[in-house]
């Protein structure tokens, strides 16, 4: 049946102008879907993937975010003495209490203010979160008012970068490094010394404590140990679950909105594809009648026309994925509703979203191709042979 497939492909080529318009329509709708998926992927990467699977986050009981949480110094000391915590090469427990505050910064070249997360932490945070790496400069010196800014902060707020000063909590802080974090939320944060930040804000408690488990299976024993100690009153979450919860509302909202638009546009694309294929069938009625007269079965005609329709869909899918590849260079920012801070993220193309887009393009082209193909397969041969045109 290679010849019948060649027949379908060449028909697409012959009707190149109408086929191109149909492909463009299908591709645009598929690109909308892909953009929605890429938004979701970008948010996932920025938020969910900010968490490491072996890291555990401790918050005050009842608190849903680090901003609203509080952990006293003595509580942090007790936690650091627990078993099942991984250790640094120096033998210290890899458990870092952190303070998270928000500051307002003006975006580059505008007066528009946006909230930015400032995280007071310790240099071991780079070990705790290996996805965060210095791309320029050096880490802050403990006990100083030096800071490292995330790459997105450098791009969107502090174009002068290293050497510039920033006022945080009534103190001037010196930018000494810029960090990249593989597209995660940490790229939208400012990191500095936790004790200096607590002092600058007059705080005597941390916001949270993040620790690395000695093994992934140690989560339950840590959870049990903290629950059993009445002094702690802390809740224990895997870091990844914490970020997943934070991203849930925003990701659901974006997906719902995106899928609604995609569905509406998809209906239009299906109608467009159907009209194109009806046109293709109408202009080839006699040709189809001839094939049936020669002895081709209705299902063979149906397959050839569906293949033609799927070819349009496949080309549209490829075009959409090409567009999606270009969209990867786009960085968007939004308000993180759980921290009320600016969150920048890149549209992220994954193999799964590319496959979904191709499946979607093929699906809508198939749905559009089925009614005309059925009509062609059911044509009365004698009537088809009398039809005008090809």
């Amino acid at each position, binding site marked *: 049946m290679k010849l019948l497939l060649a027949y379908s492909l060449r028909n697409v080529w012959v009707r190149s102008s109408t086929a191109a318009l149909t492909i463009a329509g299908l591709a645009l709708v598929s690109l909308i879907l892909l953009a929605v998926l890429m938004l979701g992927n970008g948010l996932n990467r920025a938020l969910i993937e900010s968490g490491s699977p072996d890291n555990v986050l401790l918050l005050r009981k009842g608190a849903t975010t680090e901003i609203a949480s509080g952990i006293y110094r003595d509580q942090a000391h007790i936690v650091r003495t627990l078993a099942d915590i991984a250790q640094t090469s120096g033998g210290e427990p890899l458990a870092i209490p952190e303070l998270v505050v928000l500051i307002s910064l003006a975006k580059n070249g505008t007066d528009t203010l946006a909230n930015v997360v400032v995280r007071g932490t310790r240099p071991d945070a780079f070990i705790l979160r290996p996805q965060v790496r210095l791309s320029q400069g050096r880490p802050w010196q403990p006990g100083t008012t030096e800071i490292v800014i995330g790459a997105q902060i450098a791009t969107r707020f502090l174009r002068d970068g290293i050497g510039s000063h920033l006022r945080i909590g009534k103190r001037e802080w010196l930018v000494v490094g810029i960090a990249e974090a593989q597209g995660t939320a940490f790229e939208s944060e400012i990191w500095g010394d936790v004790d200096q930040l607590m002092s600058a804000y007059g705080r005597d408690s941390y916001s949270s404590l993040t620790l690395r488990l000695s093994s992934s299976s140690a989560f339950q024993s840590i959870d049990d140990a903290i629950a059993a100690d009445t002094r702690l009153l802390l809740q224990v979450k895997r870091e990844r679950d914490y970020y997943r919860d934070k991203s849930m509302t925003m990701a659901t909202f974006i997906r719902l909105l995106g899928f609604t638009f995609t569905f509406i546009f998809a209906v239009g694309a299906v109608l467009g594809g159907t009209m194109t294929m009806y046109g293709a069938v109408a202009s080839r009625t006699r040709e189809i009648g001839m094939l049936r007269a020669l002895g081709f079965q209705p299902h063979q005609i149906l397959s050839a026309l569906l293949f033609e329709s799927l070819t349009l869909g496949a080309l549209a899918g490829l075009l959409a994925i090409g567009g999606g590849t270009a969209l990867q260079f786009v960085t968007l920012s939004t308000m993180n509703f759980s921290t009320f801070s600016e969150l920048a993220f890149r549209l992220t193309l994954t193999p799964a979203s590319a496959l979904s887009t191709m499946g979607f393009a093929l699906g809508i082209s198939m749905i559009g191709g089925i009614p005309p193909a059925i009509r062609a397969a059911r044509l009365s041969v*004698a009537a088809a042979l009398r039809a005008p045109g090809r």
Partner: protein
Amino acid sequence: MTAPVVEFQRVSKSYFRGEQEIPVLKDFSLSVPPGRFLAIMGPSGSGKTTILNLVAGLDRPTQGTIRAAGLTVSQQGESDLARWRARHIGFVFQFYNLIPVLTAAENVELPLLLSTLTRQERATHVRAALGLVGLKDRIDHYPRQLSGGQEQRVGIARAIVSDPTILLADEPTGNLDRSAAEAVMALLTKLHRELNKTILMVTHDPRTADYAQETLHFDKGTVASS
């Protein structure tokens, strides 16, 4: 006595426009022995194309029985008829009905796709059929690169490539000038004489009908004369 290759027994055919019945064939009987070249003439709407459609099973009679190439055509299902047509019926159409996006060779190969022949065997048959109609040097030409007469010869090559029992030609010269028409008719005559093909040809042109062994004159659904 040789059994007829096409036989109509008291066949009637009517079309319906709403409730209105439009009779096309009335109590028509016909017997065509193998190797006969029969022309069917008549004015437009006289039912001559309907006879070809009924022979090929593209249309069904309202009454009566039709047998062709060993099959009771009027009693078969669509799928069986399609398979039978692929084996026993060759079509030559007035407007050639070549597929414009396929080359001459590919157009001729179409009926062979329904056979069990290998690709190489199909190519051999295609070359032989195009050679028989004198178009061996036009194998890779597309229909738009051929004249009307050449297109019809490709159509004839497609009709004979699977060596069908019956050749049905519906106004094969209806779209050609005189000289091209004569060349096409000479070719059909040659196929009839050399390959002993049974040919049923519908035409309204007496000069085309003269090439046949026998002519049926049709009018208002019945044979006016023969």
